[in-house]
């Protein structure tokens, strides 16, 4: 039976866009992206167990242009999800709810994730060349 159409209160679209809701959405988006990363991790492990040939084809994909871009994306997704997740854990402990703390920790999570992603990329780049 289709649900009756009921009046709803205005939501998402009428509120001012700000760091809090942006990072909340980004936390979920990066989490979903990392779920796909888990499948890739499993694929990589299975290819390793399968022997040199199967590992070689997996490694060729990850070392290719598409693979490297995807890995860079997953690196950022992981680092942001990690930092923002720690932010959530502090909230769960009842800390960091002041307006300035919320905004500062939010920016710290975003900028920290970007800085760490660039560091990882630079590290990998220096090892490749």
């Amino acid at each position: 039976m289709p649900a009756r159409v009921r009046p709803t209160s205005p939501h998402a679209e009428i509120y001012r866009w700000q760091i809090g809701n942006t990072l909340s959405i980004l936390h979920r988006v990066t989490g979903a992206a990392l779920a796909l990363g888990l499948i890739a991790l499993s694929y990589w492990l299975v290819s390793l167990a399968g022997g040199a040939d199967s590992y070689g084809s997996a490694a060729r994909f990850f070392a290719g242009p598409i693979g490297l871009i995807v890995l860079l994306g997953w690196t950022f997704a992981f680092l942001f999800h990690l930092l923002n997740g720690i932010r959530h854990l502090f909230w769960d402990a009842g800390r960091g709810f002041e307006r300035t703390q919320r905004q500062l920790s939010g920016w710290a999570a975003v900028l920290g994730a970007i800085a760490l992603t660039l560091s990882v990329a630079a590290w990998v780049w220096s090892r490749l060349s």
Partner: protein
Amino acid sequence: MSLRSPMSRVLGLGSAKDGTAHWWAQRVSAVALIPLTLWFLFSLLTLPGLDYETVRTWLSVPITGFLAVLLVAVLTYHSYLGTMVIVEDYVTASGMKVLSLMVLRFLYVLAGGAGIFAILRVVFGFSRL
């Protein structure tokens, strides 16, 4: 004396006594993943190379294999809890919701199981049989 109405008592839709179980499991697995994921990232970044022999030799060490199994297991669990909430939020048709959650669970058992089985194959060296 109960404060519940007679109708509420007849319907019997009270607390199922596990209201915080999902929420808490998400937090516990998140805390466990902080050291596990950082160990994995640092290990891969500091290996002499990511070629077949190097990675296989690294993963064959019992402590590495053990930590990798823990990583895949906790990652699968945490990721499953997270995507479960996403499905519950956005898939509203009840039949479709049950089906999606079931498929999701199968996929996670498959991805996690394959990853762990692959690590065990590497550690115990069955791939060459």
